[in-house]
């Protein structure tokens, strides 16, 4: 049990040093790759983030029009389009499509919506064999574990653990070499792909203009799944719609760079209907299930910008809290800053909101997430809005273990007192603050390291520079 009382702290406190280091290193390396990829593009890529944000916001602000247009375009291409307002409805509709086609075995590529609605678990319980085809998701499935990152689901696992998992599930002798592990997964999944009666995917984007669903992978698992199986179902959040195919050039240029530091992923697939006549592979039946699950509610809320998210994971890679606590600490489907904003909003009832709103307090508000977001979601502002909401609604559970800020506010509101405290802080070692802190502040500090207090050095520098940038 955490001394500070915040659930995320409690989880982080119990994390093994191995897992902490694996997550921290993996996230930092991906963040560095993202930075290199963005810098290579110079100003044009930085400017592109404004365009990407505008493309997404425009699509969301006209979602009524574009969602209907996407439906019409897909229908024209021979796809069957379904709508699911709730998770239960989505599960039920997917189950019905599969039952009507007599599907007993299916392969599934990565889909965050499928995670949200617990699709794989539901179908498995109903007797369908569901095989995760993304390498990371396969490991998680074999282990009965959960993904801890939205792009790199096994960022918390080391190769020796994966080798043990493969050995325990009959995928060969223990061999922790990453290449051997990959070859074994290839051999195992080939059989599954070729035997599958159906494939399931999500979609990264949907073009209203053409109805094309965009699915990006590096492994080619969706390409294989939708080549081998006679039936394909894509489960897609309604917010994924953009106006035109051309918009995708901006979003794709930023998605891979932000997610993995690549200019483009190895496979970028545009799917919009069943295979053409005369072709032996590819789905003969193509279904799209558009899922709401609280998105229309979020669209009308003061957190609507979160719907611009393109699920690149850059915010979690950059987040110091995520790096120290791991994705599992967030307790939901979406970890990191995006999860801290989105998870409370996806909760269908006020109790669920109260339970998850505490995630907004597990942030230093350092701003790194907002700085890296390719669609410029003001994540720190949205986190603060949750805090304001939790305070306004007196959600004590959300604020459990969080030291009050009354004393800080009193000082911050009085410039003279603020200057005095700043100058005193320079003479006070941080260790003393930690030692003499009392009450909730003491418990909160027990798991945090204060930075060195500089006694107003920044203000002095700013005055000296005339307030101008270096």
């Amino acid at each position, binding site marked *: 049990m955490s001394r500070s009382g915040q659930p995320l702290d409690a989880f982080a406190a119990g994390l093994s040093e191995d897992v902490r280091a694996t997550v921290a290193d993996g996230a930092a390396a991906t963040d560095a790759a993202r930075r290199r990829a963005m810098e290579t593009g*110079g100003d044009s890529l930085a400017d592109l983030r404004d365009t990407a944000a505008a493309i997404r916001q425009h699509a969301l602000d006209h979602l009524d029009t574009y969602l209907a247009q996407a439906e019409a375009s897909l229908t024209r291409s021979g796809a069957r389009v379904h709508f699911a*307002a709730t998770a239960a409805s989505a599960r039920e509709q997917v189950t019905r499509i599969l039952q009507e086609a007599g599907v007993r075995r299916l392969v599934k590529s990565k889909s965050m919506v499928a995670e949200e609605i617990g699709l794989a678990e539901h179908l498995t319980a109903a007797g369908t064999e569901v095989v995760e085809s993304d390498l990371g998701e396969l490991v998680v499935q074999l282990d009965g574990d959960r993904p801890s990152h939205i792009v790199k689901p096994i960022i918390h696992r080391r190769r020796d653990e994966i080798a043990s998992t493969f050995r325990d599930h009959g995928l060969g002798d223990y061999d922790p070499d990453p290449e051997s592990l990959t070859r074994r997964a290839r051999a195992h999944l080939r059989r599954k792909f*070729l035997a599958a009666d159906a494939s399931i995917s999500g979609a990264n984007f949907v073009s209203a203009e053409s109805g094309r669903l965009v699915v990006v992978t590096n492994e080619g698992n969706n390409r*294989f799944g939708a080549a081998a199986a006679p039936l394909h179902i894509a489960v897609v959040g309604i917010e994924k719609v953009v106006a035109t195919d051309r918009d995708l050039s901006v979003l794709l240029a930023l998605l891979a760079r932000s997610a993995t530091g690549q*200019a483009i992923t190895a496979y970028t697939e545009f799917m919009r209907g069943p295979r053409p006549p005369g072709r032996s592979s590819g789905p003969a039946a193509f279904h799209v299930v558009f899922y709401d699950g609280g998105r*229309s509610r979020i669209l009308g809320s003061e957190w609507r910008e979160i719907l611009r998210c393109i699920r690149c994971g850059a915010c979690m890679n950059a987040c110091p809290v995520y790096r120290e606590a791991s994705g599992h600490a967030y307790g939901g489907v979406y970890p990191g800053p995006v999860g801290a904003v989105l998870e409370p909003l996806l909760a269908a009832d006020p109790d669920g909101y109260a339970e998850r709103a505490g995630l907004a307090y597990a942030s230093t508000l350092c701003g790194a997430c907002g700085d890296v977001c390719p669609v410029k979601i003001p994540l720190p502002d949205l986190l603060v809005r949750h805090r304001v909401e939790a305070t306004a609604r007196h959600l004590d559970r959300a604020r459990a273990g969080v030291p009050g800020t009354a004393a800080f506010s009193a000082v911050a509101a009085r410039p003279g007192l603020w200057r005095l405290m700043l100058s005193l802080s320079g003479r006070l070692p941080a260790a003393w603050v930690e030692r003499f802190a009392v009450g909730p502040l003491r418990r909160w500090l027990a798991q945090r390291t204060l930075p060195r207090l500089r006694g107003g050095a920044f203000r002095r520098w700013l005055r000296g520079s005339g307030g101008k940038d270096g």
Partner: protein
Amino acid sequence: MADDRATIFAGVRHALDGRARAPRPSLPEQPATGRPAPGRTGGEAFLDSFRKAGGVVLDDGPSLGRWLAEQGEGAVYCDPAIASALVKPLEAAGLPVCTLFPRDDPDRVFAAITPATAAIAETGTLVLTDGETRDRLAAVATWVHVAVLDPGDVLPGLAASLAALPDDPNVVYVTGPSQTADVEGILIRGVHGPGVQACLPLAWRPEGDES
């Protein structure tokens, strides 16, 4: 379900009701980076980026046969549309050729040769479509995939390509071999799709050469 559709659209309209709506932004001509180096034609620029993405460029039919014979053992699948020109050099290299992918025994075939619909110079991407790929399973399930490309089909960038996507139910941009970095961030090629991605440009002719 019909009710769900009505519920969702009512929810979306309610959320947007009376709100200012952001206008459609103007899009940059060539949004991403990687413009061809000065003096390089579109086709040469594509080959540069394709190699950078991990692709192998082949010269002609005979060298394709010799190179494939070094890559693996077994048969080679050749798309029926281009088989007539390639059977001879492949068989000369001792490679059995089939034009029907043996789905029931896929490991019998280690390489597939299919036509590319287009290519993108900016990213080194091959564009494959159902329209020109008789069997998309062959193009993804083999260890080696060779895309046969008409250099006249090279487009400068993603934007140009996306503005003119073929009217096809399935278009796939393939950029280098299938890969993963899921295990400790270490890059491994050949997860589900080809571990080796190659391109055979058809009768390459420098741009501007009308002879």
